[in-house]
């Protein structure tokens, strides 16, 4: 019954979504204000129904109802409760239902909270949101029904990919989906404003919290995904330029550009056409990300099923929405009046330069990600990895970060180089000191990590410059947000540069009792023992690590064998200290009592994820600060 109720809720939600689209079109084209007035409640109820459908699927997974095909294929009664719950979206159908649910709820939230926008623009926005939704409902109902029954019900389920059985990963996909769906709202706002010719500051203010919100979620999702790959795969790397990682990076790059241009539009009324274009690009990248991950054309832990029909369906939706939006853009953009002017040397100028660089990097990542698919179609196979992305995108990213440090130090509209020079003296001094330290004290390192460290020190100082000589109590919260986010970039950059320049690695076959030095640590191998967990068995290495004769710490890296489905994973044991991480992996036995050990000391590697969290925190401060100020302005207008 639960499955049938879920399916009914899903059909009803899809029907309401169609209604929402129809009402919107009728209101805009034929002036049916009665239908226009009904669009808000319809959007809210549609959001509720989608939540109910998703809630029922979660319930089926929690009960391990094996008569439902999806549960039988992806769950197992013996699985820990957390993974039964997270397993709901650890598969194709469930994750698409989660996508649609978030999409519908985002539309409902717009319907509930958006009060500033012109009425017709809001109606057009909700209609656009419904147009996106209906495609995904069709996708779910016709090619990926999560509630399909299985008869007869099997005695036991097939289990969840053990790599996905990890608390960090349980919440990684929803985080990214919140980001993707938030960009769908930004897209709908852009389409709505184009339709009603209402591109201006009010529209930008309505769109901004959604861009900021999805940007925060994308930042968190990427940071969490990176840390997961780092400790779960046991390869010691934190970014592999895997297509799936790129699928989350590309929307982030576009959202970063959009975030800055929408701020220019909201506060300076410049970059109107530009902002609309970026909103289209940002959502396109979410769709491309979904397509790459969900179509099954990529083989990775993320590709749940290879089904050409599904890939074609998502590709069709992608072309329909992006093509439609671009056509609308081409038709209408001539009617959007030009925004306010600015000089090249100004904060707007720096933001435009940054936007361009972000888009250039986005193109490079996109082409690198799609290239193997293109050559595959041409009959030969290539792989594009770190050598391409690092050498092509790396230097551009460093220029981008340099401009990022300079931008906030410039005045709006127009500025002079001479004034800028005096403002950047302190950051330049910091960068010069870092350069001197690296050249004269530390052993030679690669050019990119060296530039990275030099730049990180300069940017770290420069990011605080906007607070210089200001009354901190009267500084708006969103300025602090910018400072934190930019400082976070410096922190993450420092972590990346330290990790790539100064990592020490030891790879040995060790007898019990032997000690190996890596970084500041002495690591002693005390043997390996079999152990058992709830749905796995493992060989566990016993290591003790001590630093400078200090108290030894026990580390237990494992090689795990899962029973359903049968898979082996490597669980690294990591010891974190103030200046880095000791990362240990247990390998295979050679049969004569020796065990392979792989030990890394990665100095300041934690700065990478700390920086990511600082960036997200900066985004949060900016969002709260903006929303609070908007509310205050609105109240003032009400009482005036």
């Amino acid at each position, binding site marked *: 019954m639960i499955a049938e109720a879920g399916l009914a809720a899903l059909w009803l939600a899809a029907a309401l979504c169609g209604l929402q689209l129809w009402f919107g079109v009728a209101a805009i084209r034929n002036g049916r204000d009665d239908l226009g007035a009904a669009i808000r409640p319809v959007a809210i109820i549609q959001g509720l129904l989608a939540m109910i459908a998703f809630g029922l699927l979660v319930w089926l997974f929690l009960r391990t109802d094996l008569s439902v095909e999806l549960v039988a294929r992806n769950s197992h009664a013996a699985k820990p409760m957390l993974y039964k719950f997270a397993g709901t979206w650890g598969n194709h159908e469930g994750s698409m239902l989660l996508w649609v649910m978030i999409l519908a709820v985002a539309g409902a939230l717009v319907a509930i909270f958006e009060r500033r926008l012109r009425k017709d623009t809001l109606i057009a926005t909700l209609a656009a949101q419904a147009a996106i939704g209906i495609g995904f409902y069709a996708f779910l109902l016709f090619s990926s029904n999560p509630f399909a029954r299985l008869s007869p019900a099997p005695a036991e389920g097939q289990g969840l990919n053990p790599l996905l059985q990890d608390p960090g990963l349980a919440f990684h996909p929803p985080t990214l989906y919140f980001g993707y769906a938030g960009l769908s709202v930004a897209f709908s706002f852009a389409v709505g404003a184009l339709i009603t010719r209402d591109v201006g500051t009010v529209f930008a203010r309505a769109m901004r919290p959604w861009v900021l919100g999805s940007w925060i979620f994308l930042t968190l999702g990427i940071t969490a995904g990176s840390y997961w790959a780092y400790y779960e795969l046991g390869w010691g790397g934190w970014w592999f330029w895997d297509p799936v990682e790129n699928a989350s990076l590309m929307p982030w790059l576009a959202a970063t550009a959009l975030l800055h241009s929408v701020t220019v539009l909201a506060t300076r009324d410049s970059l109107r056409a530009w902002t609309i274009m970026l909103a289209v690009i940002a959502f396109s990248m979410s769709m491309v990300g979904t397509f790459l991950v969900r179509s099954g054309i990529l*083989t990775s832990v993320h590709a749940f099923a290879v089904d050409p029909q599904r890939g074609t369906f998502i590709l069709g939706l992608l072309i329909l929405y992006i093509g439609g939006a671009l056509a609308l853009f081409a038709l209408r953009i001539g009617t959007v009046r*030009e925004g306010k002017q600015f000089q090249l040397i100004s904060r707007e100028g720096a933001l435009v330069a940054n936007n361009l660089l972000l888009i250039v990097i986005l193109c*490079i990542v996109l082409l690198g990600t799609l290239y193997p698919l293109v050559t595959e179609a041409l009959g030969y196979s*290539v792989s594009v990895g770190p*050598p*391409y992305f690092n050498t092509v995108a790396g230097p551009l990213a460093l220029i981008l970060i340099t401009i990022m440090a300079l931008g906030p130090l410039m005045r709006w509209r127009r500025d002079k180089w001479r004034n800028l020079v005096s403002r950047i003296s302190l950051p330049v001094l910091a960068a010069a000191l870092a350069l001197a330290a690296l050249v004269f004290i530390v052993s030679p390192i690669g050019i990119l990590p060296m530039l990275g460290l030099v730049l990180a020190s300069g940017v770290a100082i420069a990011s605080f410059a906007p607070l210089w000589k200001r009354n901190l109590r009267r500084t708006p919260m969103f300025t602090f947000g910018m400072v934190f986010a930019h400082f976070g970039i410096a922190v993450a950059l420092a972590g990346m540069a330290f990790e790539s320049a100064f990592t020490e690695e030891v*790879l*040995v076959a060790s007898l019990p009792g032997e000690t190996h030095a890596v970084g500041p640590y002495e690591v002693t191998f005390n043997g390996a023992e079999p152990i058992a967990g709830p749905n796995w068995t493992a060989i566990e290495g016993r290591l003790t690590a001590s630093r400078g004769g200090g108290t030894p710490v026990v580390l237990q890296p494992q090689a795990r064998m899962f029973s359903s*489905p049968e*898979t082996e994973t490597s669980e690294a044991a990591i010891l974190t200290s103030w200046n880095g991480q000791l990362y240990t992996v247990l390998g295979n036995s050679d049969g004569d009592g020796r065990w392979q050990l792989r030990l890394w000391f990665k100095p300041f590697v934690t700065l990478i994820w700390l920086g990511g969290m600082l960036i997200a925190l900066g985004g949060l401060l900016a969002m709260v600060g903006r929303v609070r100020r908007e509310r205050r302005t609105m109240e003032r207008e009400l009482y005036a």
Partner: protein
Amino acid sequence: MKAKHQRLTLAIIAVVAVIGAGFLALIGLRDNAALFRTPTEIAAEPVPPGQSIRLGGMVADGSIVQQADGVTIDFIVEDGEAQVPVRFSGITPDLFQENSGVVAEGAFDARGTFIATNILAKHDENYMPPPMEGMETAGNDG
């Protein structure tokens, strides 16, 4: 500068930037994309030493030899017609074994040994590089 001109200037700069990005990407891809090669293809058309490629095939029966240091192995990748000697230092994936599919990332040294920096083995039925699927059957037949 007139209002129309600023938008036009920005649009032109944007188009130039995107085209520039395309060029950068193509040059980068030409130099840095690693080709997927089977032993037969390598026998027909040798890959110059130092150029990174992905080598795919089956681990030949009885070919895995453990070196004295305990972490280096030598083995042979074959595809039924040709063979390539491979050396790898590191922890092999759990499913790396003789008579099963493997993809090795790395480059040839001057003496014609393939020095692998990374090894991918067949994880499970759901995780398999597409070019390997045909080979798996070939290996089972032979």
